[in-house]
């Protein structure tokens, strides 16, 4: 089982240097510089319009920066990247197992070839009994689990998540937060997670980049050096409360600067 190293000993995965992105006259992202290390769980925390999602689109290669550079230690191959969107984004005409098969299928691998990987991924998100169900038969939380299983079935180095739990109720969201940490520990990947929830960002991540809007930029980096595994005990601890206070203050500063 891969073990996550302490924050200051992790080898680099990729970095952004002075990245700007403008759309017409709007500056979506200004001067973003950050180094992402292997095993990081980074949250991008900020109000709407601060360029959080733009960062993910840049890293996933769906967009190119207007200026600045993205550099990878190892240029990512097709299956080194997993993505989870705000909606589950499943193919409604395909069963759960066929949806999880997609990343492999696009590489030309047959179902039989990768069946074990698919079943393992579904087992990890607790849905191995639902392989033959169609997405519409599942609840919102279960659909999101399928989406997560699809993102991790190829064992990617980096998973990008764009407010994946924003539309779920709090109980489901807490459960998925716990499960996500367990999953990350198990497959030892790096996660970049976009959220506008202070509580979620503190619970999940060891690095929080607080962002401000107009123009979108990073105004502060916080480190949450509470050890993993974290569970419901951590969620109710005074240590957790202290971190959320710090993150919340930083977010307020971000809102004021933008106003």
């Amino acid at each position, binding site marked *: 089982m891969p073990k996550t190293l302490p924050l200051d000993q992790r080898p680099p995965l990729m970095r952004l240097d002075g990245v700007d992105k403008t759309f017409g006259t709007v500056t979506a992202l200004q001067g973003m510089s950050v180094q992402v290390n292997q095993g990081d769980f980074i949250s991008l925390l900020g109000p709407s319009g601060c360029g959080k999602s733009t960062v993910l689109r840049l890293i996933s*290669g769906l967009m190119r920066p207007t200026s600045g550079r993205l550099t990878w230690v190892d240029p990512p191959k097709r*299956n080194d990247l997993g*993505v989870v969107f705000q909606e589950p984004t499943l193919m409604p*005409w*395909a069963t759960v197992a066929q949806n999880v098969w997609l*990343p492999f299928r696009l590489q030309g691998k047959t179902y039989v070839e990768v069946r074990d990987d698919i079943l393992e991924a579904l087992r990890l998100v607790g849905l191995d009994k639902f392989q033959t*169900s*169609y997405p*519409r038969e599942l609840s919102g939380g279960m659909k999101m689990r399928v989406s997560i299983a699809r993102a991790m079935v190829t064992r990617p180095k980096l998973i990008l998540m764009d407010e994946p739990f924003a539309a779920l109720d709090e109980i489901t969201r807490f459960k998925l937060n716990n499960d996500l940490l367990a999953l990350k520990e198990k497959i030892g990947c790096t996660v970049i997670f976009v959220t506008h929830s202070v509580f979620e960002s503190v619970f999940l991540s060891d690095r929080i980049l607080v962002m401000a809007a107009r123009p979108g930029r990073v105004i502060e980096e916080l480190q949450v050096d509470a050890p993993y595994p974290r569970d419901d005990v951590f969620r109710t601890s005074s240590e957790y409360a202290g971190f959320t206070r710090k993150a919340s203050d930083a977010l307020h500063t971000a809102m004021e600067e933008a106003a």
Partner: protein
Amino acid sequence: MSIAENAPETVIEDAEEKARRKSMQIEKAAKWLLPVVALGAGLGLWEFIVWWNDIPHYILPGPTLVLTTLVQDWVMLFQALLITLQITLMALAVAVIGGVGLAVLFNQSRWIEMSFYPYAVILQVTPVIAIAPLIFIYIDSRIAGLLLCAWIVAFFPILANTTLGLNSADHNLRDLFRIYGATRWQKLRYLQLPSALPYFLGGLRIAGGLSLIGAVVAEYVAGTGGLQSGLAFRILEAGYRLNIPRMFAALILIAATGVIIFVGLSFLSHMLLRKWHESALKRDG
């Protein structure tokens, strides 16, 4: 997490629930019963008016006479029906191939779409009955001419709907396909075609009716007699001979064919979509 809560063993039904169930049962029966009653009443009235006013059969035959004619002329009419049906189904098949093929081609190349889409629209909006005489001047084969006419009427709804469907694929899924480095073909095969299926099936149901209309209209124009003539020609011929009961009998066969095509295509659509598409979902309450 379970897919559905298990219903409790003993169902407790309150007064409101009972009333609603009863009204639903009545509605279900009425859905079948009312059209049948209306049809019976209509036919009865028709028969009565013909008998009461002593209308001669070469002006308006009563329903019983129409039915007798249908039985008497069955061999000849059925032969004609088979020919019309053959043209209709062939035209529908060509409309599916042409409509889907053009939609995919337009979808893959903006340049081709910009060049040719306006002409597809022009072909669609020009009444086929106006083009048909020209077609039969230039095309020697009667079958090919009939097919072409029926195709012109039927292909457009398939083209328009499939084009819409191919462009309706979920945007996040498109991004996902890009991130995973999907080829154009993979995107078409695994994302766009399945997304377009419900739209295509909607177009197919319209095209089924239209290809029958196209086949009948083309037969009117082509108009040659002999063994190879379909129902439309039989109607024309019966009209010349003032054999009005036979006209009605042939008309009934055409209408029935249209209904059967529609029901068949609706069933096909239901079978293909029932597992996943919203339109095929049964909802409670």
